[in-house]
């Protein structure tokens, strides 16, 4: 425990928080440390621990101090632990809670679990050693200043102090935001775990939860941004929100689709709709989930996925046969066509005109001439 130094707990400019876990008690070797249970934080550069009740009591240790570490399984009445073996104390270490320790290792005892994830992240950080790439400045030492430092001109020290104060102020704002965010995340995590528990029960019971409750559950997941683990459901991954959206899209896209030959790439729809909304924009997933409901809601639009992966919205009235017939007509008329030429002819995007030609080729009406000059389609005379 004598490797730790007092810290203000603020992250440096290039330092990122990796994980934090509350309910952690520190051990000096095999003995309980003279500290209460607190929050352990792992950053890209340090291991930090803060007392839950007394926020001023905060200590930190650079990750470079760590020699090796291992898990210690929980036992009866004993929490799981991570044992961390340490290098010798460097000469310039800042003061901390322990002047001296007879042990070259510490333990983190996880009274509220979380050791598995913490161990995993610690392993990642100790492998990547990100602190070596982005060194952070040492905070200005609170106590000792070297002899050389004392001889600096007062003016410069004053300026430096101002800069440092401003940085600390900014840091403090961010730190506060960050702390509040961390608290929020703890609560969000509880929601995630609760939702997983519910999802498991739904999976096992197959039909004891009413449809209404399932729909409600899905809308809770949507609000929290939790992926839907329940695969068996009546409306796809849609909710009432998506049904509403689907109807709105049905109205909104009618005219634009007519103008564009009955078909629009989904990314184009995304831009069109969001530009029109201005705010409270749709996420890509919202759009996809809404479009998936066109058929079940009996709207005159369809979401379609081509072999290439391209997704489009098309008017149901523009049937497959019509598109293929029109492609064949145009190609026969001109003798041959490339996607670009076809696009100009129809006023379509190159992407979509290519898909139509490919469709016609697929059913055998067209055949291709593939060369470095481009892909050209001819009527299939075979």
């Amino acid at each position: 425990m004598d490797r730790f130094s007092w810290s203000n707990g603020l992250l440096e400019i290039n330092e990122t928080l990796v994980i934090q876990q509350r309910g952690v008690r520190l051990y000096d070797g095999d003995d309980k440390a003279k500290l209460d249970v607190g929050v352990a934080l792992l950053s890209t550069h340090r291991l930090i621990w803060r007392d839950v009740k007394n926020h001023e009591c905060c200590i930190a240790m650079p990750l470079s101090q760590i020699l090796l570490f291992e898990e210690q399984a929980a036992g009866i009445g004993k929490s799981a632990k991570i044992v961390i073996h340490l290098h010798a104390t460097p000469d310039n270490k800042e003061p901390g809670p322990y002047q001296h320790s007879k042990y070259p290792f510490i333990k983190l005892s996880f009274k509220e679990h979380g050791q598995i994830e913490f161990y995993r992240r610690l392993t990642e950080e100790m492998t990547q050693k990100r602190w070596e790439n982005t060194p952070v400045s040492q905070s200005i030492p609170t106590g000792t200043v070297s002899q050389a430092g004392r001889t600096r001109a007062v003016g410069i020290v004053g300026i430096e102090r101002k800069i440092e104060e401003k940085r600390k102020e900014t840091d403090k704002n961010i730190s506060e935001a960050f702390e509040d965010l961390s608290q929020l995340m703890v609560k969000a995590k509880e929601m995630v775990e609760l939702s997983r528990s519910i999802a498991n029960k739904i999976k096992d019971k197959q039909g004891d939860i009413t449809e209404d409750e399932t729909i409600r559950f899905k809308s809770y997941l949507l609000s929290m941004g939790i992926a839907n683990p329940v695969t068996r459901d009546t409306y796809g991954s849609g909710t009432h929100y998506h049904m509403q959206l689907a109807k709105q899209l049905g109205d909104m896209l009618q005219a634009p689709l007519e103008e564009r030959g009955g078909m629009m790439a989904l990314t184009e729809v995304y831009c069109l709709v969001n530009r029109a909304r201005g705010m409270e924009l749709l996420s890509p997933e919202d759009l996809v989930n809404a479009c998936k409901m066109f058929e079940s809601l009996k709207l005159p639009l369809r979401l379609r996925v081509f072999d290439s992966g391209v997704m489009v919205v098309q008017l149901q009235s523009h049937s497959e046969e019509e598109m293929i017939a029109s492609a064949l007509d145009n190609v026969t008329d001109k003798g041959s066509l490339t996607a670009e030429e076809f696009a100009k002819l129809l006023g379509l995007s190159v992407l979509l005109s290519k898909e139509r030609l490919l469709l016609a080729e697929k059913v055998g009406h067209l055949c291709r001439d593939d060369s470095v000059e481009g892909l050209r389609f001819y009527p299939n005379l075979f």
Partner: protein
Amino acid sequence: MHRRGVGAGAIAKKKLAEARYKERGTVLAEDQIVQMSKQLETFKSNLEEFASKHKQEIRKNPQFRVQFQEMCATIGVDPLASGKGFWSEMLGVGDFYYELGVQIVEVCLALKHRNGGLITLDELHQRVLKGRGKYAQEVSQDDLMRAIKKLKVMGNGFGMIPVGGSYLVQSVPAELNMDHTVVLQLSEKKGYVTVSEIKESLKWEKERACHVLDHLLKEGLAWLDSQAAGEAQYWLPALFSEITSRDVTPEEANQMTP
């Protein structure tokens, strides 16, 4: 005093307890949904409070956004999954990234005629910033990458190819396998590559090199300069656009957009 744990009676009791527990399990799930609804309300007001204090931080500070995203990922939450999500609605993270998505699609569409649908992350970043104007919020490359990740959901071939120290952003569904990617990476230094260079660096046969280069030509990702001194050079417009070509203005690009 009953004797516990031994005998046929005890086994039957255990089975009964298990059956009861299972039955309670059903009730518990319904209870849990009610519980979740309550917790959700609490969470919503906590988030509102957080937003009232720190909403600006998310909008102004790219670093904070990164940490926010990473924390969400750690606990299994996607704040960008839906515009209807709490995170979107109250923190405004959603609008920030979805709008960025629109801007990315528009830039890629405008330049597709020139680079075939491949653009460096740097160039994309510059052009998006330019499009947003002087007074808009700062946008980092991390922000762009997260927005692109979301765009992938809509098909249309959005992807990122690691090249040099950064990425090429692909916005068309062109099939690019390992061979194509490796040649792109080789071209990064000078913006072009020759068959000899490929043979020498990658130790490929001529046929393999030509096959890959032909595919890039066909997809519009590479241009052939057959009049170059020495041997033919295959240029990647996505890579050389910053070095040599004249900048295409948005008006010109609009005219040329299919």
